[in-house]
């Protein structure tokens, strides 16, 4: 293009990352009894950002004990007081949102445009929303004076580190629970910064505890006998393992897992907006989104026209430095994830699907994957069934609304779906038939704290957000 945008990087001077982080237990940063450390790197450069602590079972026990001790007072606080703590947290997040956006972009690899315009505003909004519930639980439809569960063990993924923290911690605290949260192994930093926000807000010690580490830390937390509630967002495989772990206990469980969302485009769709929706459906956050519209189901009669528009649009996507304000596509979060995407796309080709990517130069260091489109994909292809969790779109066709619904529902998952048509009655009819928890008609990947989110089938159970999100943390 003639109109070349000069680099417009967001300054990283606004973030001060410490060289080493301990565990946040009982209101202070402490060392692990084991002394093991991990490194977190910036996925776009592979630069080591900081070292952090690998919590072992003993550390987890310490954190659960602190949360248990804090529970008595915290749950006895008048709701209005708990609310004010959450309002404080929400405000501080707004005040520090630029810093947190830059931090999240550094640690996760996603573009600053997204952390600035999507992640951080949603994080603050989520705390605001649940703050308001804390003193209104009698009116939430769960009976009068619904009780909290106790200590919540929460394990969150790396794709929206701070937003997933907000989805877990805000409703837990509003309902009077205390929390031990484990951020993902590759993105611990924003949760550790959140500990500092708790300090600034004056949150009583032990109400929020952050234990960092890999899957072993999460397993110890989930299995801890004094945890009353387990909330997990992540892969379906790990979700099933957790479901087995808590079987036979009294632990309440909510799971938000994988997906293979169908984005259905009918021949009467608003084409230009549909193209935008397809793009945000699968390339938002490099496709590392559980509710991504990773299967495009396009009516056969408009396939050519739509794909042409889509390819033209993909050619304008700007991939590169995530801190650049004009970057659309950032880095893949980790070498492991990149390897998985690479393997699955290779399999797609091997199984006969046709691969296409726009001309796109990838940076020499860091973890990168070009936006990729597969055509000639059928229901039998692995890339039409398995969650890739990357910027890879599988294109399938259909002939009739019935066939579209049948193909969309032909999945072990049931998290999200999209419908594109200008015919209102078709939207309602198709939405009614789709077995998915979140359906976007003539839009995609929209989130709001008031809007319940969660899946059908193997995409998990329980809802986060809205009035529904309270249930997961109440003894009802």
């Amino acid at each position, binding site marked *: *293009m*003639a*109109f*070349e*945008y*000069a*680099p*417009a990087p967001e300054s990283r001077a606004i973030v001060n990352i410490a060289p080493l982080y301990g565990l946040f237990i009982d209101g202070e940063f402490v060392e692990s009894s084991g002394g093991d450390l991990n490194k977190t790197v910036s996925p776009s450069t592979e630069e080591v950002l900081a070292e952090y602590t690998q919590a072992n079972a003993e550390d987890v026990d310490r954190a659960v004990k602190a949360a248990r001790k804090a529970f008595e007072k915290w749950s006895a606080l008048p709701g209005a007081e708990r609310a004010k703590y959450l309002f404080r947290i929400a405000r501080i997040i707004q005040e520090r949102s630029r810093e947190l956006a830059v931090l999240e972009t550094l640690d996760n690899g996603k573009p600053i*445009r997204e952390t600035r*315009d999507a992640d951080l505003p949603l994080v603050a909004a989520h705390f605001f929303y649940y703050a308001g519930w804390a003193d209104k639980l009698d009116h939430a439809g769960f009976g009068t004076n619904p009780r909290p569960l106790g200590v919540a063990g929460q394990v969150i993924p790396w794709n929206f580190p701070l937003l997933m923290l907000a989805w877990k911690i805000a409703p837990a605290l509003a309902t009077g629970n205390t929390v031990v949260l484990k951020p993902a192994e590759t993105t611990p930093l924003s949760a550790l910064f959140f500990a500092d926000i708790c300090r600034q807000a004056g949150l009583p010690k032990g109400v929020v505890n952050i234990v960092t580490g890999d899957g072993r830390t999460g397993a110890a937390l989930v299995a801890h006998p004094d945890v009353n509630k387990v909330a997990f967002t992540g892969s379906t495989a790990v979700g099933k393992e957790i479901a087995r772990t808590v079987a036979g206990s009294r632990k309440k469980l909510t799971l938000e897992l994988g997906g293979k969302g169908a984005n259905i485009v009918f021949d*009467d*769709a*608003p*084409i*230009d*907006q549909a193209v*935008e*929706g397809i793009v945000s459906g699968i390339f938002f956050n490099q496709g590392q989104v559980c509710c991504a519209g990773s299967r495009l189901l396009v009516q056969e009669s408009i396939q050519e026209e739509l794909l042409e528009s889509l390819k033209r649009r993909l050619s*304008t996507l700007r991939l590169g430095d995530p801190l650049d*304000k*004009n970057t659309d596509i950032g880095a893949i979060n980790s070498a492991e994830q990149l390897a998985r995407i690479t393997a699955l796309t290779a399999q797609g080709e091997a199984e006969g699907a046709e691969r296409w990517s726009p001309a796109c130069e990838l940076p020499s260091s860091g973890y990168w994957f070009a936006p990729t489109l597969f055509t000639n994909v059928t229901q039998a292809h692995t890339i039409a069934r398995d969650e890739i969790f990357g910027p890879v779109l599988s294109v399938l066709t259909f002939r009739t609304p019935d066939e579209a619904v049948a193909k969309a529902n032909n999945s072990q998952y049931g998290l999200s779906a999209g419908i594109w048509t*200008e015919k209102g009655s078709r939207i309602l009819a198709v939405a009614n038939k789709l077995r998915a928890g979140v359906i976007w008609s*003539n*839009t995609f990947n929209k989130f709001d704290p008031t809007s319940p989110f969660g899946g059908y089938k193997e995409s998990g159970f329980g809802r986060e957000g809205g009035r529904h999100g309270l249930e997961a943390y109440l003894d009802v």
Partner: protein
Amino acid sequence: MYSRYARRYARLVTMPTNAPSPTAERVGGTPTHALQDVTASDSTLRRFLHGLPGVDAVGLEARAASLGTRSIKTTAKAYAIDLAISMVDLTTLEGADTPGKVRALGAKAVHPDPTDRTTPATAAVCVYPDMVATAKAAVAGSSVKVASVATAFPAGRAPIAVKLADVREAIDAGADEIDMVIDRGAFLAGHYAKVYEEIVAVKETCGTSARLKVIFETGELSTYDNIRRASWLGMLAGADFIKTSTGKVAVNATPANTLLMLEAVRDFRAQTGVQVGVKPAGGIRTTKDAVKFLVLVNETVGEDWLDNHWFRFGASSLLNDLLMQRQKLATGRYSGPDYVTVD
């Protein structure tokens, strides 16, 4: 990357007002293109125009807003400002217009910044038909075109004979470009053929003498579906440019309606091979706004339209803000209104 930019920048500072067109241009008369059949009657036009894909308002506005968050800095900003200046149709359309006012406007169009002769000229001045001769004299010897609104601007409520006479007067006085208004009443009443035939008639009158810009008054068409239909109707009838607004109603150019019209010219060229220009007009007052529109052009239709032969801003106060920003980039300090000329 830098050298690529520098090369384009160098081309730009010379600011040709007539870029070589990548596709054959049309000259006068009934247009010939692949879609001729659809223009046979009201009903064939209706079937065609109503068969165009619908527009989802929320999605369209969201896309326009999202492109508005692009951060255009340093060299890119310098490029964008000069490009924007070169695309301005510097406009005065007041009842109180006088020869003196028009002469001042013409002088400013030729040399927008008297303190810096490297500043590109604007694309055109835009005046009422009775001021064309004055304007023509004022820009004589420069690259600046004279555009004239016509066809009973801004309402367009006059008999066709009057409208055509209006156009002829302007052309006879030397207008290079005619900015006509469509009959919005006929459009809203579903008389697409009437709107079509008027545009064809005006285009015939323009002949080879003037390029035709067709103003839809998008604020009065109200819906995005209507704007898309009007765009196609105008292009089918032979418009060289499609233009949002007169500047005389409450809602004029917006990023969303301009994005929509850019999509229309993009799709029209894909289907017919004919390239049509776009002119947002009214309400664009700041450099920031203008740059957002250029981003829309850049990411919707690309390089082929990034030239004042294919994209214009209908504006008056915009120019001074562009000039102040240009001075800021050159000197590093903020400028003020006393350092640009009043209009």
